[in-house]
């Protein structure tokens, strides 16, 4: 096999395989890290726009969490195949979910550092900066019970 065939046929497959294998290792590690951190004590999160009547709160402050996760080559490949036949793109759905969980955890970290009991009006915003990446901003108002 000459160098021409090598670069045109073998290399892309190697890149795809390396990307897919490394990508799934990184994904597994991230899922384990998310699960571990979600066990930590956390303020109660809600998307209610105001503290419920009967709960007296104070010390309100806006808190944020951001995360941008890239899709690996394996996911890109699977999703491009999926585009041909339609249906749910599970690989990218998982990526979006991980990005939201990460952004949410970072917001929770900020709220916890403030000693907050609740985070009110939690919102998720998607912001596309790169190509195939999941970019999430999570924000809300951290308050303390009084």
């Amino acid at each position, binding site marked *: 096999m000459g160098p021409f065939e090598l670069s045109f046929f073998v290399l892309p497959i190697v890149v795809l395989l*390396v990307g897919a294998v490394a990508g799934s290792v990184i994904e597994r590690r*991230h899922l384990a890290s998310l699960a571990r951190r979600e066990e930590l004590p956390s303020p109660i999160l809600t998307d209610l726009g*105001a503290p419920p009547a009967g709960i*007296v709160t104070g010390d*309100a402050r806006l808190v944020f969490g951001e*995360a941008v996760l*890239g899709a690996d080559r394996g996911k890109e490949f699977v999703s491009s195949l999926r585009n041909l036949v339609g249906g749910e793109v599970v690989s990218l759905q998982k990526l979006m979910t991980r990005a939201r969980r990460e952004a949410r955890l970072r917001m929770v970290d900020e709220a916890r550092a403030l000693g907050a009991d609740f985070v009110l009006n939690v*919102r998720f915003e998607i912001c596309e*900066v790169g190509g*195939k990446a999941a970019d999430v901003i999570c924000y809300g108002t951290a308050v303390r019970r009084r």
Partner: protein
Amino acid sequence: MIVVNIETVPGHRIVELRGLVQGNTIRAKHLGRDIGAGLKNLVGGELRAYTELMTEARREALERMIEQARQLNANAVVNVRFTTTNVASGAAELYAYGTAVVVVADSDVTPPTG
């Protein structure tokens, strides 16, 4: 400056409305960032440079919004929202807006007599 994304400030009372304030910023990723992200896109994982870019953009947009509120002599901004737009490939706009108000702590308000 108290900044919240709910309609009231807990423990405070809104005594004055100063109007809508806004701030935006458009950030482009620089070349170094783009190359790093290109490598990361092979194996997946977090694109830290882009996360930092978003954090910076968010802070900048909020700061501009707060500056407007200051000029209106407000001491709080309520109901803050963020929207994002992908203006061009490689650049992202972050837009923050909210209502500038004057608040006083509940304890400072004289309770009605009688």
